[in-house]
Every structure is written in C-alpha cells, then in structure tokens.
C-alpha cells in the first residue's frame, strides 16, 4: 500500500490525517485496510500501482499538458480543407460561454424541477432542430451521425420486420463502418444485410436504375445522404423516396443541418426518418470529440415507439399554467427495459445539445439562410480557383460545401499532393483514393464560412506549386 500524501490534495477535502482520524473514529473503523475486508486477499494487486509521478500543483500540470499538446498543429495554425464527417464551422462565443457554465457542465440527472433549466435547453434543442427539419419528433442526441444512422436503420428493420438496407456506394468510410457494426454480422439472427446502391461517379448522384434493381420485399429502408458524401445535392431524392415507399420500405435521409437554411428539408421529399450530425451546430472539432448525432421523424406512434434515445417532452406541472420538461417513452429505453428496450442508451453528448440549442437560437431563420449562402459562395469560389490549375479538375456540379477534386491530370497522388500542401501550411482535402479507387486520385475538399479569400489564395498558390513540381 502506498503512503498517504503528506499535503492535502486540492481535489480532496478529507485527504489529511485529522480528517481520516475523525472519520475513522466516528465510524468505528480501526484501519483503512480493514474497510476492504470484502475483497479476498488473493484478489488484491500483486504489485503496487506504478504511475508517473503526481503533478499535484496546477502550475506543473498545466505546463506539462501544454508541452505535450503544443506539438499539435491545429486548423487555426494551418489552412484546412478537411471535412467528410467533422467540419470546421464558426462557433459563436455565446455557445461556449453557455456550455462552459458549471451548472450545465457538471450536472448529472436531477429532477424535472431542480434541473428544469437544463431540461428546457434540451427541449429547445429538439424544438429548433424540429423547425429546421420540419419534423415534429426529435430525440436527444446520440453519439454521432454514424450511430444515429445505425439506430435509424434498426428502427426501420423493427418496423418493417425486414432485414436489408440499401446504402450509397459513396459514404464516409468511418460512418459506413459504424453502420455495418450496428447492422450486425450475418451470423446473428437479427442481422441487417447492407446492400450498396450505385452512385454515378460522373454526376455524384444516386443511380436510380440500380436502386430499383436492388429494392425488394426484403428492403427495410433506403439510406440516402443529402448532400451526398462527394458533396453533391441529390436531385432525385423525391423519386428515391417514392421507390422506397412503393416497396414498403422507409426512406432514411442523412443530412447536414447547416445546409438547411438553403436546402429543402428531407421531409419535403419523403424522408420518414432523418439523421445527421449536430457537430456543425456550434461544436468545435476536438479531434473528433465534437461529434454528435440526431434522429428525427414524424410524430407517429409507429416511429415514436422505436426510438432508442431519451426524449424530452413538455408537460404541465402542479402549478396552474406552468410547464416543465420530463422524459417521454422512458420505459422503452434500455434504462427502463434492459435487453427488451430499443437498442440501448446511456451517456451521450447532451452538453452538445445545449451548445446546438444556443447556436440555432443565435442564427434564427435568416442566419441559417445567410450562412448557407455564405458557404455556397465560398465553396464555389474556391472550386473555380482550383479548376484553373493545370492537372486539377473539380469532378461535379451542384454541391453544397464539399466537392470532389481530381488530380489524375497532375500525375501525382493525393498523398503526395497533401504532403506538399502540408509543407506549405495547408491541410488538403480528405484522400478518397484508398476507399474509392475508381475515383482515381481524388480528394474531398470542404470550404465553410471560416475560409477567407486569402485562405483560398493560399491553397491555390500552394497547389499550383505542388502540381508543377
């Protein structure tokens, strides 16, 4: 056993001899060791815990953390064009001020009366997202877009009692892998077969004929993303929805919520369940720690009874005319029903739900429209600059903030180009060549409201140099 620290630890008010003695004497405990009498001796550790020396002073700890983490090169240091599943959008200062409030930061559960402010903020997250999506039912968020898509596909499978889902050829490999996991390997009795439908590499849009071919009475759902992974806005979405419904399947659409000030919400073109990421709504990237996903649908029991998430609902209190916020449909979640519950729930990203609520409140309808247009203009301006560079081709038209750039004409690999860019302070687009070899040497570029003319010029200049080398 290690020795008790000589000085009281700042995080532990009882970490001193006097406090120990007092507590032990009042409790009737003879020795600290005797408290662990339930643990048999042969269960105890074989050798004492060997950790690096404690950094009990905040100043030492702070310096230590800084020394390590300052080895990172951030997207503030470089000009980044990475997206594909995590995006650098602007996070208004008020979002972080609110999320940093100790009441929100450290709350755990509470009651609908004592933690009403947090519950209300959650309800406002659901309500505002519902307006963006034009849907009446929204749950509290899940871990990520991929997890939301996985849950939505499982919901559709339970509703239709069918065990196949059609997904697009081009998807974030990260997200696709999560979905495959949620759909289970074929050995499992409830496995959902994941069937790819084609996406035309020339237009970036779904291949309708291929979808028709692959739809059957086994299809639980078509999962579509809009904009698609290659950035293109899917123009045949309504036709795809019709196909799904004619086959008795659900249409699940994955969507980027920051696009919804300018793009039609998926409910306009027949989506039954809508999923997506909340990270663009006021959450920084945190090396992927900023992710969060949402699930939404029409408010119909058929859907409502399949949600795995916690659902905050507005309701009356005992005081006349007063409302507060509690959990609806709690019995169907895993807390309520263990293995009989819908999938599972637990800690998720509920702090991010508050950040996103603040974000949506700040933007309002006109903010979302303006943001959408700002992004469209910057991204298309950037693409036009790049298209002028010899050996560089922008693959498609009709996209939102991400677009596919092909470098076949440069005779260079994306990996070589990105290395050249990195030396010039630019993080080039996400390399697609490994996951999708048929696209040749292509990369997915992301441009947002964060990019300035100088940033884009910086990229164009660097790219010219690298391609000409």
């Amino acid at each position: 056993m290690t020795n008790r620290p000589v000085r009281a630890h700042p995080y532990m008010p009882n970490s001193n001899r006097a406090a120990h003695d007092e507590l032990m004497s009042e409790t009737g405990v003879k020795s600290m060791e005797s408290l662990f009498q339930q643990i048999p001796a042969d269960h105890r550790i074989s050798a004492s815990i060997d950790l690096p020396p404690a950094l009990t002073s905040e100043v030492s700890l702070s310096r230590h953390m800084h020394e390590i983490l300052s080895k990172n090169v951030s997207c503030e240091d470089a000009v980044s064009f990475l997206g594909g599943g995590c995006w650098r959008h602007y996070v208004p200062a008020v979002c972080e001020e609110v999320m940093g409030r100790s009441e929100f930061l450290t709350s755990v559960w509470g009651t609908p009366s004592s933690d009403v402010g947090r519950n209300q903020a959650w309800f406002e997250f659901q309500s505002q997202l519902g307006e963006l999506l034009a849907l009446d039912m929204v749950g509290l968020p899940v871990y990520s877009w991929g997890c939301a898509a996985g849950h939505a596909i499982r919901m559709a499978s339970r509703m239709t009692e069918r065990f196949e889902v059609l997904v697009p050829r081009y998807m974030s490999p990260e997200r696709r892998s999560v979905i495959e996991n949620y759909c289970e390997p074929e050995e499992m009795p409830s496995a959902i077969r994941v069937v790819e439908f084609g996406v035309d590499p020339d237009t970036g849009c779904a291949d309708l004929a291929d979808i028709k071919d692959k739809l059957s009475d086994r299809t639980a759902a078509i999962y579509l993303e809009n904009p698609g992974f290659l950035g293109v806005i899917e123009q045949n979405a309504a036709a795809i929805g019709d196909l799904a419904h004619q086959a008795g399947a659900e249409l699940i659409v994955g969507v980027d919520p920051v696009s919804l000030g300018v793009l039609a919400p998926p409910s306009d073109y027949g989506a039954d369940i809508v999923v997506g990421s909340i990270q663009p709504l006021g959450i920084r990237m945190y090396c992927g720690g900023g992710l969060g996903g949402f699930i939404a649908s029409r408010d119909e029991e058929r859907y409502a009874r399949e949600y795995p998430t916690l659902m905050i609902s507005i309701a009356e209190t005992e005081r006349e005319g007063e409302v507060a916020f509690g959990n609806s449909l709690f019995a169907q979640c895993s807390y309520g029903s263990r293995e009989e519950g819908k999938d599972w729930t637990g800690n998720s990203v509920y702090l991010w739900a508050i950040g996103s609520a603040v974000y949506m409140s700040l933007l309002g309808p006109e903010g979302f429209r303006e943001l959408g247009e700002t992004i469209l203009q910057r991204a298309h301006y950037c693409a036009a600059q790049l298209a002028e560079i010899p050996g560089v081709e922008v693959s498609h038209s009709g996209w939102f903030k991400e677009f596919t750039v092909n470098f076949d004409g440069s005779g260079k690999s994306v990996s070589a180009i990105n290395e050249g860019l990195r030396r010039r302070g630019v993080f080039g687009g996400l390399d697609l060549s490994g996951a999708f070899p048929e696209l040749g040497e292509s990369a997915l570029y992301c441009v947002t409201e964060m990019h300035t003319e100088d940033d884009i010029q910086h990229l164009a200049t660097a790219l010219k140099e690298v391609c000409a080398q």
Partner: protein
Amino acid sequence: MTTSTKMRRYQAPVWDEPVIMETGAPGRRGQLFPAGEGAFASAGTTESLVPKGMQRKSAPALPENSEPDVLRHYLHLSQETLGMMGVNLFGTCTMKYNPRVSEKITARPYVADIHPDQHEDTMQGALEVIHRFDAIMRELSGMDQFVFQAAGGADAAYTQACVTRAYFAAKGELSQRNQIITSIQSHPCNPATAAAAGFEVITLPLEEDGYPSLDALKAAVSDRTAALMINNPDDMGVYNPEIKEWVRVVHEAGGLCFYDHANFNGVMGKIRARELGFDACMFMLHKTFGVPKGGGGPAVGAYGCTAELAPFMPGPLVTEKDGHYSLDDSSDVSTGRVREYLGNVHQVIKAYAWTRAMGAEGLDEACNISVLLNNYMEKRLLKIRGVTRSHPEGEAWRMEMTRYSLGKLFEDTGVTVFDVQNRMVDFGVDAFWLSHEPWVVPEPFTPEAGEMWSKEDIDYWIDVLAQISDEAYSDPEKVKSAPHNQAKAKLKGETLDDPERWATTWRAYKRKWGV
C-alpha cells in the same frame, strides 16, 4: 432523530423563462454572416447554386433574437439548473471534482481545432496523450491494450459485444456461441448492448448474500456461452468474493469475461481486472477519472483487453516508435468502428490530466476516502427513522456505495422515494439516485460519497434526509407536495406517455395542445 446542523435557507432562482420559441421579434439577429462580400459574390447566389427543386421553400420557424437576448436566456436556464451546485452524491455516477484547468487546456486550438483526419505528424500531441493514458489504464487494469473510441460506458459495453462477435466469428463459432450472461444487478447497458449486438441474454438472480450463486452460473454456462458481462462490486456496495471462480467457470465453458468497472472508485488501485482473470474491462472516464458529466456526455468508455483480444478491437489504435506516434488500423479481424474516429479525444485529455494530478498515491487516497465516507454515511443514515439497507445481515464494511430502502418510511407515512427526491432539492441538495431497474428493495436510494465532498457536506446531506424523515412522520403532505423552493413545481407525468399529448418539439406541442 433530530438534525445536528442548521439547515441553510435555500431558494432556487426563479426566472419564469419562456421557451425560446416564444421569444424574439421579426428581424432581430443574433449572428450575421458575410454573404455576398468581396470576391465571393462572383460565385453566384443560392438561387443559382442550388438546383431549383432542392431549394428551401419556406424559412424554418426559428425564434429571432439578438445576441444578448440569447445569452441571457441561457444564463437564466443555467441558473435554473441545480446540478452539482449544492451537494451531489448521485450514486453509480461517482460525482467528482472536474478540474477547470482541463477545461481551459482543451478549449485551446491545439485541442479544439484539430480535425481527426489530419496527418498524424500534425497531431503528435493528442496521440501522445492517448498513448500515455493507455499506459496508465494498462497499469491500473493489467490489460494489454486500450482504445477510447466508445463514447460512453454503454458504448464500451457495446464494444465488448462487438469484440466478442469478431472473436468468435474468427474462430467460426459465432453461430453457436450466441449467449451472454449477466446478473440482475449489472447496469442495464450490459444486457441491452448484448441484445442489440444480436446475443441472447441470460440474467442471473441475486441470492441472499447480495450476488448470484456460483451454482446458477454453472447451470447457465454451456458451449453456447459467448461472454460474461459483470460489474463488481455491484451498485449495493457488495463485492462478489467468488468472482475469480466465476471467471474460471466461464473460461472453462469457452466464453470471454468482461469486467464492467463502472464502480471502480471503491477498488481503484486495490485489484486489477486482468489478475482476476478477466479478458477485458471498461473504465468510465466521465465518472472515475474526473471528466465532467455534461448532463450526460460527451463521455468515454475506456475499453481494455488482453493481447489475444486486441486484434478484434475497434481501430485505429495509437502506437509509438522512437518517440513518434502513429495510428494503426491494420487488423483485418477488427470489429470496425463502434463510433467514428478516435472517440471523445478532449475527454481523454482531461482524464489524463486528472490522473496525473492525482498520481498513484492520490488514486489510493481517493479510493480509501470514498469507502470510508460511505461507511461513515451508512452509520449515520441507518439511524434515521424509516431508512434500512439492502442485505442488512451482511457484517462487512460496504464498498463505496450502499443500497438503502425507504420502504419502511413509505409503509409508515405513504411518502415515496420520489417524494423524498423532490423534497431534497428544496434544500439545494441534488436528488439522490434510486436504483436501476428492476428494484431489488422497495423505495430504493443509492448515495455515493466519493472523495470530493468534505465531511461538512456529507453531514449536511445526511441532515437534510433526517429532516425530511421527520417531516414525513409529522407532516407528510409537506414532502408529498414538494418541491417548494424550486424554479418549478412538480411535473405532472401523466401526459408524457400519451401519444395525443406528448410533445418533444414546440411544433408538436402547438399542434397537440392548441397553444
């Protein structure tokens, strides 16, 4: 019993804050964006850049507010959140101090503005922290490899179910080994994730001494057993002394053993999961390792396992060679992602910082204090009228939690455990945790003292409960009609599960309630 401490006068802030959807006025703006500025105007407009049929037709009905309006609204909501502002002994969640220095560090661009697909050369700092923390987790558990992708404790349980699938699929035994065994006192996420992964769940009941019998386990295992998923100690503070034998029995049947270390605080630094024979384990960084709860995430379920299971883990894993850190995603038998990218990296960084601030001595001290304080509490709580504990015949000191019952109080006074929760918050004390489903004692509650609260805080919490017990016996209506000092009165729950009345969005509320 009468209280020994003077009760504080507490009143929650009341703002009568409207729902944000009701606020604002047309034309107000909280954020502007530079649309159409400079050279960008030449790129076109929404009308020219978005295909006609896909343009949004009507604007979303979001509120229109100025920036200070929004800030004050959410500040008011934060003030109407008790959370951890008073004393919070929320059992099973191991409420700890969350050092604010970590919040400052992770808000800096070198954490907050890192994209997970950056080249590894540009995230050496983040990868180094992950690698260092992996080493710390290994030392605490005896496991050979950790991964931090799982975005919560339940997600780590799901990870175990996925690793189990991949392991038996590789052996060609997955169709046959389709059962996972757990106990009724395990967290619901264990059976739930096992079932979501496609397994049949076998749940063992408890015996009189507080844990399932070895005989029940022996009867449950077979050549269909894929894994055991179990916590120890359980949420009642009972340590299963036969756990090594359990692991032996499951291994003999060919199954894997997963240790859900949700309740690590009471055994931290005292036992190692691997030394007890387990193949894998999980720590919750948002509980045991000082990362803030955030009202329920972002969280991390740190998943560790043996070298034999490591190839089946979700990737990528962080490796180190000559001081350079890399991402290794090369295993072709990996279960794939359970969640995109590397997980909640900023939370791993906070957990690393917390653990470095504590050191081995600090962890040991925290464990000692949490068990000592729990037993101190037990001694005092059992003197309160109407309070009993589960398995009262057990003579050994409980671990870091004790499961109590207000069944007697309810029988005597008609006051329920929910009423008591609602009354506690009138004193600025966060409502206690009851028990996961199913309840094994009537009207359960489960405080967990942890190491962050002073003796004065703990005494105050106990005094509050004693006062409420007095009230229940003398003036039960006062407790039943609580809360009285909170921002809102008690929620009427009857509409929450009524499809005609539930409303998870303002638009549904307007439609259903005609407001």
